């Protein structure tokens, strides 16, 4: 979560809120009274409050001076600092929202946005550091991950990330490893010797 927050109060004008959103290139402003979260206003809420660019602009300036209190969402969906990232991601996904203010003891502590969650995903995939990718199809049963992992141990290759995907065929899972080696041959040979299918890039293209 981000702890450096840009916030407004219920009395902040719509015009000022728009400036904040544009200058900081963000899409959500928590609305606070003291430390207490009382609402949230998104870039879409703000734009909805403005007249269309195709309608006459009379009264536009008057709108800009109205307080955000008039348009903010009061029932804010929030997260707790100790919530897991996957729970935050599920909340964002289920509610089709773009950001989750993080609240504890009734006080605003931070915010988690869609981009924060996407970056975590990139980290989890292990794409940030040098590695090779290995894809192994296995039966969906106990001990498969342990068995496949042994090949990496035997080859002396350090694994940086492991992902277990649901397989395309029922009863199958796909294990995706990223490991720190430029020479994948030993691992692939060990896996194939144990009878695993390690699809080569030509088949692997279907994943993308």
């Amino acid at each position, binding site marked *: 979560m981000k702890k450096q927050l840009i916030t407004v109060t219920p009395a902040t004008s719509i015009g000022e809120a728009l400036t904040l959103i544009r200058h900081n290139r963000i899409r959500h402003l928590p609305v606070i009274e003291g430390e207490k979260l009382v609402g949230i206003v998104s870039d879409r809420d703000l734009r909805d409050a403005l007249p269309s660019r195709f309608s006459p602009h009379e009264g536009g300036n008057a709108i800009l001076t109205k307080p955000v209190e008039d348009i903010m969402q009061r029932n804010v969906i929030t997260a707790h600092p100790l919530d897991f990232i996957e729970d935050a991601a599920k909340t964002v996904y289920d509610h089709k929202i773009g950001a989750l203010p993080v609240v504890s003891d009734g006080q605003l502590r931070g915010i988690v946005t869609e981009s924060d969650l996407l970056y975590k995903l990139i980290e989890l995939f*292990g*794409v940030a*550091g*040098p*590695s*090779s*990718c*290995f*894809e192994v199809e296995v039966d969906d049963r106990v001990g498969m991950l342990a068995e496949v992992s042994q090949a990496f141990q035997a*080859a*002396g*290759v*350090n694994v940086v990330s492991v992902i277990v995907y649901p397989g395309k065929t029922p009863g199958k899972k796909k294990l995706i490893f*990223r490991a*720190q*080696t*430029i*020479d*994948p*041959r*030993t691992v692939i040979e060990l896996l194939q010797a144990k009878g695993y299918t390690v699809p*080569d*890039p*030509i088949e*692997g*293209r279907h*994943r*993308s």
Partner: protein
Amino acid sequence: MSRRSRLIYSPDYTKYYFHDEHPFNQHRLLLTHDLMTSYGLLSEQDIVPPRPATDEELALVHDPGYIETVRAQGHSETELPQAASYGLGTEDVPCFPRMHEASALIVGGTLQAVDLVMNGEADHAFNPAGGLHHALRARASGFCIYNDCSVAIAYLRKRWKARVLYIDTDAHHGDGVQWSFYDDPDVLTISLHETGKYLFPGTGNVSERGEGSGYGFSVNVPLDAFTEDESFLEVYQTLVPKLARAFKPDVIVTQNGCDAHAYDPLTHLSCSMRIYQEIPRLAHRLAHELCGGRWIAVGGGGYDIWRVVPRAWTLLWSEMTDQCLEDSPLPENWGKRWRDKSKLPLPTHLFDDVQPFPPIPRRGEITQKNRLILERAMMYAPLG
């Protein structure tokens, strides 16, 4: 015959040696040197021995603690506790005696090439032992301990205030060099490589374009697995001249890894020896057109050390020295000397036309995909 080119070479380069089973084997340089000599492309005065790079030069790019650890490890009987955190003692980069000295000699060779070219003693210089483009600031990676390319470019920037065009045609992404100059608009790095979906190091996505004022000055073209000559060259010959002319470099550094060849055991590109004539040909032409000839070439990956590396880098040297080679049977005495040492039959000809590789079934699809990636790669690149 032009004597304006130098080969930086010494048999001491083979002291960069991990172990007998390791795929990175500088023994390939002996084979290459012998093939160049057998072709009559090399005379004594063409060769300049490398000098070791100083700690100060290495520190242009590398962390001093890392340099210290590499040196200490090379003089230690046991593995040092801090070695692993620097990426040393792994399967890819096992520790070996005097590893600092062996690695610093390779970097020094590339610096030697830089000095000869920048002092005007030569137009072009080739250090076949160099091209260790994966080494990071404080971490050995992908067979590479010190990054001679990065050190040489940093040296070119500092000592000569030069604008540097770096062209990397190794099958693996030139990650170490890219990250070294990611925010520097005076270093344009171009890397053509097999897509990182599966292949090490996984980076080199078309969306990696540099940051800050260096945005646009890192260009990546990840090619589809099983890309062949025609599509590889189409991308290379479309992209490189456009970018080079717009960027107006003072000097060109090329990394000439030859692991995009179909025989290479570590990658999935399907090119033939043809590209190793065309790649340096264009770099050579651009160096004369844009930089008064200043061109520094280094080696790089190449793990079929018998069938691919000697031919590829002999072709590079033949281009650099304007001694163009046509396809022909390889010199007989070369084959005779090495035949029994190679596990696989040695090639009979300079190119692969005698026994052409079977065409890849998905050629059309791959070509289209590569064109699309090329378009996206050029989108934010300097195009004049």
